[in-house]
């Protein structure tokens, strides 16, 4: 039996915790190939996106050279050939940008509240047995081809919407935006905005629904336990939690509205003049401009259209990136 001297114990303690070992492995060849292949495909999305931006920019840059900034601000789009065969181009998408903004605003103003109502309905008011079917119907809307919206919009919605426009004009034309220089209400930004509203509802509803469904249950129960009505609970808990998610969803809808082509083309009268009067039948949007002019475009016009495409690409990219960022933040933080 040996005595353990107290100092010995202390000394042995100085060995301390060792540093962590570096763990390495040498992957097998098949794995190296696998990882290489998969990684390069993973990067492909980035490559494609860059190529898109790059090609359009390179092609479109000529237009910026020849037109300068007036490409963005000018409202004219003429190609004139004088007697000597010299072509002068005045190409500007200013009117189209205004049109894009106006139509998108109408689409958001009409579509977002309806989407929120639908999302609340599906999450909190719909009877449990019907819910799956109703959700499927809304998702179904997202699958409709856009040209179908164009057809329906032109033949079904437009007659009704023209009538509504006349009503609104009759009673509300003292508000500047509802005024019109002439009583011509067909194929107006109002109607195009309505069609777009219906087209963006599926995506805004889907995002809103996802956010609402993730409202923390304990907070919902706390509100009910305090004697809240359903609407009281929604105001106190669901909206504070989900508001930024809904904003993100609305921005995704906005991105979709920017890029919508054939549906808008059918129900909007494309005119190269700035128009802020929603009800008046004159407007435009960049996407429809491109298909309008594509068939008979001269070489310069084609380049200009490519430049317009680049602008559209950048606009939608920015809006979408921002929107996705917001939505992910809401879902992640579970505020």
């Amino acid at each position, binding site marked *: 039996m040996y005595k353990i001297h107290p100092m010995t114990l202390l000394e042995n303690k100085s060995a301390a915790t060792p540093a962590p070992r570096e763990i390495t492995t040498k992957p097998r060849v098949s794995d190296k190939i696998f990882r290489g292949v998969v990684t390069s495909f993973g990067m492909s999305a980035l490559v494609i996106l860059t190529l898109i931006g790059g090609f359009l920019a390179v092609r479109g840059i000529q237009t910026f050279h020849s037109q300068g900034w007036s490409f963005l601000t000018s409202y004219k789009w003429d190609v004139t050939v004088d007697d000597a065969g010299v072509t002068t181009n005045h190409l500007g998408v200013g009117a189209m940008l205004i049109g894009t903004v106006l139509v998108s605003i109408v689409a958001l103003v009409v579509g977002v509240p309806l989407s929120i109502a639908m999302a609340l309905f599906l999450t909190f008011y719909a009877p*449990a047995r019907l819910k799956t079917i109703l959700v499927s119907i809304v998702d179904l809307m997202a699958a409709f081809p856009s040209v179908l919206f164009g057809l329906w919009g032109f033949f079904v919605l437009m007659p009704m919407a023209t009538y509504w426009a006349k009503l609104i004009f009759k009673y509300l034309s003292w508000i500047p935006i509802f005024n019109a220089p002439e009583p011509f209400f067909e194929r107006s930004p109002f109607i195009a905005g309505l069609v777009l509203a219906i087209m963006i509802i599926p995506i805004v509803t889907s995002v809103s629904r996802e956010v609402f469904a993730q409202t923390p249950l*304990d*907070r919902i129960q706390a509100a009910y*336990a305090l004697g809240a009505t359903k609407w*009281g609970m929604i105001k106190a808990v669901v909206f504070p939690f989900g508001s930024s998610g809904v904003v993100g969803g609305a921005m995704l809808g906005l991105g979709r509205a920017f890029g919508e082509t054939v549906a808008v083309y059918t129900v909007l009268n494309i005119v190269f003049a700035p128009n802020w009067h929603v009800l008046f039948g004159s407007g435009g949007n960049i996407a429809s401009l491109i298909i309008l002019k594509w068939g008979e475009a001269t070489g310069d016009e084609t380049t200009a259209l490519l430049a317009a495409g680049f602008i559209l690409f950048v606009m939608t990219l920015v809006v979408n990136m921002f929107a996705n960022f917001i939505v992910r933040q809401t879902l992640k933080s579970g505020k």
Partner: protein
Amino acid sequence: MTTNNSDKNNESQQGEPMNTASSSLADVSKQRASQKQPGSAPMGTGLEARGIHAWFGSHLALEDVSLDFAAGTVTALIGPSGCGKSTFIRTINRMHEFIPSAAMAGEVLLDGKDVYAPGTDVTKIRLQIGMVFQKPNPFPSMTIGENVLSGLKLAQLKVDNKEELLEECLVRAGLWNEVKDRLGAHAGGLSGGQQQRLCIARSLAVQPKVLLMDEPCSALDPGSTLRIEETISELSKSMTIIIVTHNMQQAARVSDYTAFFLSEGGPGRMVEVGPTTEIFTRPRDIKTENYVSGRFG
């Protein structure tokens, strides 16, 4: 208080000496009994649960529970996990029905009136029967002050002096001194124990007659737990409290009566109920004895 001895029990030997664990519980329990003072504020005539059954879909989770809760008392519901204690209290304030497949049978009488009577305004019931949850859940988008008064806003109740009510609730919940200078701060900055006391203050603001507490301290540290137990003792002078707890020492410390729930593979049932001191020293049922002496659960 009617003690409900379900006829299906196996009677245990009466007055058998208990092991040391239960004796210390018994001491605590006796201590509690001597401190009880009669309540002063009007608090209704108490709550009665009669023949409560609860289903989730076709699965019977709770069977034939009948309990009386006299005004001004604290009743603890003890038992192993999953035996229906939480389900039971959720049938009392009609939170059980939020589960889509839920069904129930029986009556819950508050001041003699069945809360499930047709045509009852369920939101009014929940004003009179408040609830504090296991995990503190203050509203993060509101300040501390707003949280306390949120019940009033939700019920659209008018109160003459909001600041007074705010202070009173926070004092009763034992939180006033810690937050009186920062009522405008967000509730998320409080510690777990403070958040739970905030939730208690929030429930108090609508002046309930009954307060249900579903394991309110199980997510908290011992210091906060003790503070909340002091609060419970104070509160019981002006309302009826029903507390679900896994912690037997806690039950012994705070409650006047204890009910033991058990599920033996089937639906949960209430095995025995009685004054706390008796449940812990001289339980009538062998299953209760086994539980309180720590032989299972």
